[in-house]
């Protein structure tokens, strides 16, 4: 489904900065992968490259066998709104539009029939439990509802790949749980491939696999077993291992 081959990113500037080094990653169709790592590790850069918002300096990205970075700007825009779905930390909803209008925006831009749009909105709003707020404006709803609206917008055109950037970053624990359950259910039911970047081990524990990166390099990855609880524990352990400094340990031992 998604394939990254030797992807590197260097930010040119007065001081050139290497954000990603030789990343190789593969995601199967229907898989739910979380990417974790400390601040500045390159998570968001990686996601931006996959989502075609940013370009890799070297290396290739294949989505469903196609390399979107070779497309022209206009084709790329169409590719994004037809093949990809996005969920952002700050929801990225337009405050001039109502919840319903925000959800249908990708279809509207593609010139879908009004009847079809209305049918799809009804369907997805029911699934996500936001039918009651369809006519509200974005400043009249809670953060959890806003994120569910954003998920509805990301899902309404049945994308092949759903990309989520810290989807629980702005939510309280209850709303986070709801949103993660929803994403997991979508992944389960619709077999949509899902790639999520997160800080939150709780959110990451919903994934099938967690990939850890540090300083722009793949560090390790762990798969989920039977229980989400033990998976959560494993993630915590891995994070503390990554956060600790190897030299510190050895100096204590000596």
């Amino acid at each position, binding site marked *: 489904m998604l394939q990254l081959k030797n992807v590197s990113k260097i930010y040119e500037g007065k001081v050139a900065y290497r954000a990603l080094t030789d990343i190789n990653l593969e995601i199967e169709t229907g898989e739910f992968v979380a990417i974790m790592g400390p601040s500045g590790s390159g998570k968001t850069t990686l996601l931006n490259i996959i*989502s075609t*918002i940013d370009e890799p300096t070297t290396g290739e990205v294949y989505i469903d066998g196609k390399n979107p970075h070779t497309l022209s*700007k*206009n084709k*790329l*825009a*169409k*590719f*994004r*709104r*037809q093949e*990809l779905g*996005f969920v*952002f930390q700050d929801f*990225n*909803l*337009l*405050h*001039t*539009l109502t919840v319903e*209008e925000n959800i*249908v*925006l*990708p279809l*509207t*831009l593609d*010139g879908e029939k*009004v009847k079809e*749009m*209305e049918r799809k909105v009804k369907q997805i709003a029911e699934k996500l439990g936001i039918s009651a707020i369809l006519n509200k*404006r974005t*400043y009249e709803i809670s953060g959890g509802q806003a994120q569910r609206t954003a998920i509805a*917008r990301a899902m309404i055109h049945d994308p092949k790949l759903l990309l989520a950037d810290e989807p629980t970053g702005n939510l309280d624990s209850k709303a986070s749980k709801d949103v993660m359950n929803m994403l997991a259910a979508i992944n389960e039911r619709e077999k949509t491939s899902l790639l999520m970047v997160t800080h939150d081990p709780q959110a990451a524990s919903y994934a099938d696999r967690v990939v850890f990166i540090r300083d722009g390099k793949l560090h390790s990855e762990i798969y989920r077993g039977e229980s989400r609880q033990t998976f959560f524990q494993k993630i915590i352990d891995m994070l503390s291992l990554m956060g600790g400094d190897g030299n510190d340990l050895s100096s204590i031992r000596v």
Partner: protein
Amino acid sequence: MTFRQFVFNNVLRNKRLYVAYFLSSLFTVMVFFTFAMFAFHPALSGADIHFSALYGMSVAGGIIYVFSFFFVLYSMSSFLQSRKREFGLLMTLGASSRQIRRMVFLENMIIGFFATVGGILLGLIFAKLILLIAENVLIISETLYFYVPVLAIIITFVSFIVLFLCISFFVSVVLRTKKLTDLIKGNKKWKGEPKASFALGIIAALLLLAGYGVALYVKGMEVLFAMVPVIIVVVIGTYLLFTQLSVYVIRRLKGNRHLFFRKTNMLLFSDLAFRMKDNARTFFLVTIISTVAFSAIGTLYGFHSYLTRGIKDLNPFSYTYFSFIDDSDERIEKDVQRINAILQEENIKADMERIEMTYYHMEASDTPVLIVKASDYNRFARLNDEKEVSPDKNEAVVVNVSARMMGSSSGNSSLIDQPILLQNGVEIKPSETIESELLPEIKGYYIVHDDAFAELGDPLNSSSFFAFKVVEGEKESVMDAGRKMMEQTEYRAQAIDYMVYEIDKAYGPVLFIGLFIGIVFFVSAGSFLYFRLYSDLDDDKYKFQSITKIGLTVGELKKVVNRQTAILFFAPIIVALIHGAVALTALSRFFDYNITEEALFVLGGFAVIQIVYFFIAKLFYVKQIKETVYR
């Protein structure tokens, strides 16, 4: 770093943020200064300049000052709106609200000072430019030369420092510091869609229709009485049109899903509705200001053509000589000899015709009526390449001055009903009416067959009329010859080119100042629009960034921005053009003179300028957005 240093550096190092506000202030000062510079021009303050022109100018000066005040206030408040976050940050760091007010006050004074000085300097250049244009377009007798206007500089400087002082004081008092969280959240809050009521929308339409109806219906002096009420009704109607009717229409459009959910329409309409509150105010101001500009220029231009073209149309020949009733034959001979001598002197070749204009007593007319014989008339017709007439022996042709000149009500229509009684008892019946300006008789006259003319008997009185048509001659010598012959024949001779020149000369400064005021108003309207456009730039950048992440092509982005900008630029101007067209129609009814051509020229000219302005503004706006969105 003292507090004052902080404020100073905050302005100087943050140029981008302040530049829009600074430029609009600078521009306002420049306009006012250029105006003051002409108003206090030594050539215009002479004793012979018309009192009404001076009065008109001081009124215009006052209006410009009032508009400057509101414009600066408006720019200031939206500038402060966009800086709420910054104030929030400062207060989080512990700045008191008194300090914030002091900061705003100081900042405003710094900007105001530089804007005033810069505006005066730019105004000097601008004035020179305008004068250059004016000299080439208009004939300005009391040559409006360029001068260093000490008085205008002092007045502009003092008025604007006072204005900025007032506004700084006003704003810093008004700037109530609300809750800190509100400030930090800043501009994300929704301003609210203005409420629109169907009833008020209908009232808007009715008011406009009533105003237009009255303006188009009244004639002559009634126009003067109807003017003030119509203006009030139309102004209120325009205000309601933008605040109520437009909101209502946009709501209805949004309600129609097949339209609203179609491609980029959703982005366009939702934005329109969202900004309607700000837009409505700007639209209203721009419409009124532009209407004033259109009407002022249209009136002056129309009046100018009323004077000059009126004379030209009434006088188809280059020179004419029309003797007085009691002039002796010798005098006439001498004058004509003189005219011919002048023509020779100036190397002008001209064809000449003469006619004895004979007036007869008519039963139904109080004044003597002119009757000419067909052969005489036809000689003049040939001279000017016009259609000849050939009435039958017992027929007469009635000649009226063309309706365009006299309006519909004039001309002597009764001539056609009166038979002419000949000495031999034969009655001659007028058979047709034609329009012609060949002979200088505006009350209308008869043309009869030569044989019938012989039977008319002795005329009541008569005078000689000579017409000269220039065949060959330089433009300047034609003009000079005209001046000479008018002076030497004690104004029995008339030279059309020279008369028009004289009118242009006398009318030049008034036309120039009117034109200038019109341009100033129109340009201010433009700067209003520009300011409105750019105060939305950050919102638009954010909006398009969000949508582009989901996927928006460059073409779609351009389409949305184009339409958005087009509505902003053309909605008020189209309304203003309609207002202007109605106003000019009413004016032509007042003068009883058709100025359709002039009105079309003026309104069309403004429309073209606006279109050019739109394309330039749009180009830069799209570029700005594209730069942020597609990096």
